[in-house]
């Protein structure tokens, strides 16, 4: 129990102008500590909602979430959560280094001093060692997202939640960041939940791939790709990869 992220029978319903909307319906899954879960699904399948439930930004209407035996709220207060948003969400008046330092300045961050990683090291880890003093508007989209990954990792969180972090980047940048993310994941041994709507990305990154179906958001299938742990981008051209990608793509088709 304490070695798993487990989501049990989670449903989320909102009240909107058009009546009650069910964003998630009876979602359950489990991943081991140190795992990498890719959450794949079309828009409207509630994948972002799922991350928000896991990070205590939303309380589920029904069901429960346990992160290594603790509730999301406890984990958040212990600052064991890292969150990477779709648009980097850097504070534009802070330099790259100051943005990475933010988690150590707020929410009692100072008490994390013992376990916290150094902002310089984090920037080096994401390949921005020479960009400490740049403001966000001086950085490219890919570099901004790298800063936000460094910021999420600086508190040495147990779990890293990523909400389509590379969705707005060009393919070349995205490929490179995918490769580096796997390296970072191996080096830091953080448990990662990664939301995407790209089959390639999900299959390349995930040790497990959770496929969701939309309206209402529910689990279609939990897939464990048959691929080696250590993988380079070239794996995407192998027959094994292409076949499994086709399988995932078929799962995204509307249920008849």
């Amino acid at each position, binding site marked *: 129990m304490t070695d798993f992220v487990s989501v049990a029978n989670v449903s989320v319903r909102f009240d909107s102008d058009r009546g009650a909307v069910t964003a998630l319906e009876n979602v359950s899954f489990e991943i081991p500590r140190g795992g990498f879960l890719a959450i794949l699904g079309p828009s409207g399948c509630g994948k972002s909602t799922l991350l928000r439930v896991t990070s205590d930004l939303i309380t589920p209407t029904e069901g429960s979430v346990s992160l290594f035996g603790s509730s999301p709220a406890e984990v958040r207060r212990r600052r064991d959560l890292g969150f990477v948003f779709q648009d980097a969400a850097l*504070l534009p*008046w802070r330099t790259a280094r100051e943005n990475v330092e933010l988690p150590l300045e707020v*929410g009692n*961050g100072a008490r994390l001093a013992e376990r916290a990683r150094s902002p310089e090291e984090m920037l080096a880890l994401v390949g921005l060692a020479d960009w400490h003093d740049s403001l966000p508007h001086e950085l490219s989209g890919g570099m901004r997202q790298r800063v936000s990954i460094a910021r999420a990792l600086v508190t040495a969180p147990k779990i890293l939640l990523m909400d389509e972090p590379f969705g707005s980047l060009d393919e070349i940048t995205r490929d490179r960041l995918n490769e580096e993310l796997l390296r970072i994941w191996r080096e830091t041994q953080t448990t990662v939940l990664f939301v995407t709507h790209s089959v390639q990305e999900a299959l390349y990154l995930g040790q497990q791939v959770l496929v969701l179906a939309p309206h209402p958001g529910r689990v279609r299938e939990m897939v464990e790709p048959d691929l080696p742990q250590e993988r380079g981008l070239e794996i995407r051209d192998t027959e094994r990869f292409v076949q499994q990608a086709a399988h995932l793509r078929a799962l995204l088709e509307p249920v008849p």
Partner: protein
Amino acid sequence: MKREHMLPAATLASLLAIWGLVVYLFNVPEYIVPSPLHVARTFTRDFGMIARNLVPTAIESFLGFFVGNLASIVMATVFVHQKTVEQALFPLAIIIRSIPIVAIAPILVLMLGNDMTPKVLIAALICFFPTLVNMVKGLSLVDPQALELMKVLSASKTEIFFKLRLYNSLPYLFAALKIAASASVIGAIVGEWIGSTEGIGALIIQATYNFDTGLLYATIAAAAMFSVLFTALISFIERRVVKWSPEIG
């Protein structure tokens, strides 16, 4: 001199020349419109007196600017944290704003006497509303993802205010402060129109009654120059403080 400076300078020079030419060609009497040369001569001749009268006006503008903007920043901060207070006071603020400032001025002078206080208050009042509106906008229009980030980081309300909202509001604040700088000068002058014996406003009234158009125009030029310098000072500070926003929202 750069082209972007040269063009407006040339326009100004041409306008002054046309003004002078019209006055000369149509023989306009000096008590109706003075020639630019006459205004310039009066300005240098009476410079000491004009400068002496600019001092109280400048002090009233500065004080009014300070008091008015400080009050609106404090009120905007309260509004953002207490929605009920905003709902109770904001409509009232809009109503007060719609009363013309020239109509409020005599009331304040009657109430507060003939010293600097009513002028400072009028200048403050005129600064208050644009800054209030912009500051409320700047404090509340925060990137929703940045707000979620702060929640994930378990940041307190105070931390969210000082690390996020306040910085976010600075471009909006400075946009309002630049308007407030020239508005506060107008406020101080309007205040001085009502029974004052010194200040730019008083000098304008005196010069008008005496048909001393040279002095009138020279006084107006001095007030305009002060107003431009005041705004330029705010722009200068803005460039030092707000370095991150290439496009100001």
